[in-house]
């Protein structure tokens, strides 16, 4: 069974590690919920960057995150409507939301280069972890073919984001 306390603790201990919560693999509806949630979280980070950063590269990256994750989640929404199913909230989604809330709070207090570096580093770590999870767990465990296809397309997009974030971090010359 899923232990919420453990996964929240894991998130605090390792900022970028996706908490290893479930003994049994997540089902399609849980995977759909968590994938959608992960996208919404990155959109939230991006809006914060657009509000707080003055750096052109950071702002361009954030605008791309809003644009791409919105496109992926719109496609997910259309699929969910078509299949007439309801995604299931789950411990991993909840842990992600909680972790994101804390990260947003931290980022909100920063300005200038400190903000840019914290945002960029978090984007890199976040995409790395999400990509590992989508590739290693979500796609292999998905049984509904159109959802698997969507996750595969989404992964291709998120991998580009990871590369883009890597370039952003090195361009900012943080620490």
């Amino acid at each position, binding site marked *: 069974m899923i232990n919420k306390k453990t996964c929240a603790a894991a998130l605090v201990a390792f900022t970028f590690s996706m908490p290893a919560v479930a003994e049994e693999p997540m089902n399609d509806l849980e995977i759909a919920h968590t994938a959608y949630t992960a996208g919404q979280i990155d959109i939230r980070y991006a809006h914060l960057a657009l509000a707080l950063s003055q750096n052109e590269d950071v702002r361009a990256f954030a*605008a791309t995150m809003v*644009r*791409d994750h919105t*496109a992926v989640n719109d*496609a997910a929404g259309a699929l969910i409507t078509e299949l007439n199913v309801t995604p299931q909230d789950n411990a991993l989604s909840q842990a992600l939301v909680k972790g994101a809330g804390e990260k947003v709070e931290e980022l909100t207090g920063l300005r200038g280069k400190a903000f840019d570096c914290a945002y960029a580093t978090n984007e890199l770590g976040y995409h790395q972890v999400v990509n590992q999870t989508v590739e290693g767990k979500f796609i292999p465990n998905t049984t509904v073919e159109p959802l698997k296809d*969507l996750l595969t*397309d989404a992964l*291709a997009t998120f991998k*580009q984001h990871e590369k*883009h974030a890597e370039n952003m971090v090195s361009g900012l010359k943080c620490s």
Partner: protein
Amino acid sequence: MLVKRTYTRRQAGALLGAGFAALFLSGAPRAGEAPRTHKIDIRKFKFAPAALIIKAGDSVEWTNHDIAPHTATDEEGDWDTGTLSRSQSATLTFKTPGTYSYFCAFHPQMTATLTVEA
């Protein structure tokens, strides 16, 4: 530069027709050879073909097959397809010879070249 955003096949045909008409009226086509429309696919964050050689007066139609929106944007800022969502196309006509490096304005790691020969 003629910029035609195309959303449906029927619209694409109409716009393409309009493009050729405009080209004809402007007197641009070369003697003896009709202008062509070349296709470039944007798939998995790549332009394919990534290098294309065309003749002045030809057109290029970019089609995005990814979920993520893309653009084809000239590095010098001379031309731009604008945002292409999934399944959208845009056609541009090239009259000025030269080698154009272009990229996706949203994903700058996506790059390609277009050579326009006289």
